[in-house]
């Protein structure tokens, strides 16, 4: 039963990733949000690679495991670049583009050096462990960066609906994984993640596709209203 559910979630999530790229093309926003599209195109490519490894070797094989975590490292890198592109959108009018790029490169280099330092003592499977640790560390860097960006969106009173909802979705996506991680720790087992991880993987393409389809670049909202508490 769980196998068919996981397969359904997989195909549904892949369809959503494709839908975002198609929506961007239809809405003529492909180049404007190029790095978001690049992330989903990378996700589609990795889906093909993972599908091949899964069909050839099975979900418990070392080959699928390596394919999964290597492509995951590449996707985390692509998501990092997409997040930096959202920074460029938010801070674009302030002419901070050069310093954002510089900080992003320094942060990526620092994360890579830190990750290398962590795995340097392990001579066995150095490249695999490096890719995995770099991916983990970039995930946490992305989590912190997203919350900083959300603070900037509120402080700068960013009103473009697409940008606001992209950032919010990304924050929820990262937070959901952190919450699921805590849940797994509480349960002392990772069986739930076999269903939960693919479901969470569908959230980002679903919310971003909805945003891309529902709103245009001219749509505006007031982010402060999102924080307003009804009295």
């Amino acid at each position, binding site marked *: 039963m769980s196998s068919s559910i996981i397969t359904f979630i997989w195909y549904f*999530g892949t369809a959503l990733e494709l839908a975002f790229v198609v929506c961007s093309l239809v809405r003529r926003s492909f180049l404007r949000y190029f790095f978001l599209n690049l992330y989903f195109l990378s996700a589609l490519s990795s889906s093909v690679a*993972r599908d091949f490894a899964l069909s050839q070797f099975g979900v418990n094989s070392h080959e699928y495991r390596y394919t999964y975590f290597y492509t995951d490292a590449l996707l985390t890198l692509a998501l990092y670049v997409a997040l930096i592109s959202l920074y460029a959108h938010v801070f674009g009018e302030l002419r901070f583009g050069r310093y954002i790029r510089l900080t992003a490169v320094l942060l990526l280099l620092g994360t890579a050096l830190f990750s290398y330092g962590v795995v340097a003592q392990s001579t066995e499977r150095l490249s695999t462990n490096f890719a995995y640790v770099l991916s983990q560390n970039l995930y946490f860097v992305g989590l912190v960066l997203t919350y900083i960006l959300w603070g900037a969106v509120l402080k700068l009173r960013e009103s473009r609906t697409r940008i606001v909802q992209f950032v919010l979705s990304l924050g929820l996506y990262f937070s959901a994984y952190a919450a699921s991680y805590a849940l797994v720790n509480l349960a002392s087992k990772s069986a739930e*993640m076999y269903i939960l991880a*693919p479901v969470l993987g569908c959230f980002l393409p679903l919310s971003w596709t909805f945003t891309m389809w529902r709103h245009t670049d001219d749509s505006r909202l007031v982010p402060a209203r999102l924080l307003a508490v009804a009295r």
Partner: protein
Amino acid sequence: MSRKLGALALALGILVCSMGLKTVLSSNNHSNGAVVIANGPEPWPGGSPAPSKP
């Protein structure tokens, strides 16, 4: 020059915050030390990429 130093300080600060958060979360992990991350809806193979030795 000062802005470049500011960018470097900001990058270091974010890195320290991120790794601190990771350490806090990882310290409570009593399974295998692996932090669950995933991109995409594909079936999760579980654990870390390093396979157990035969």
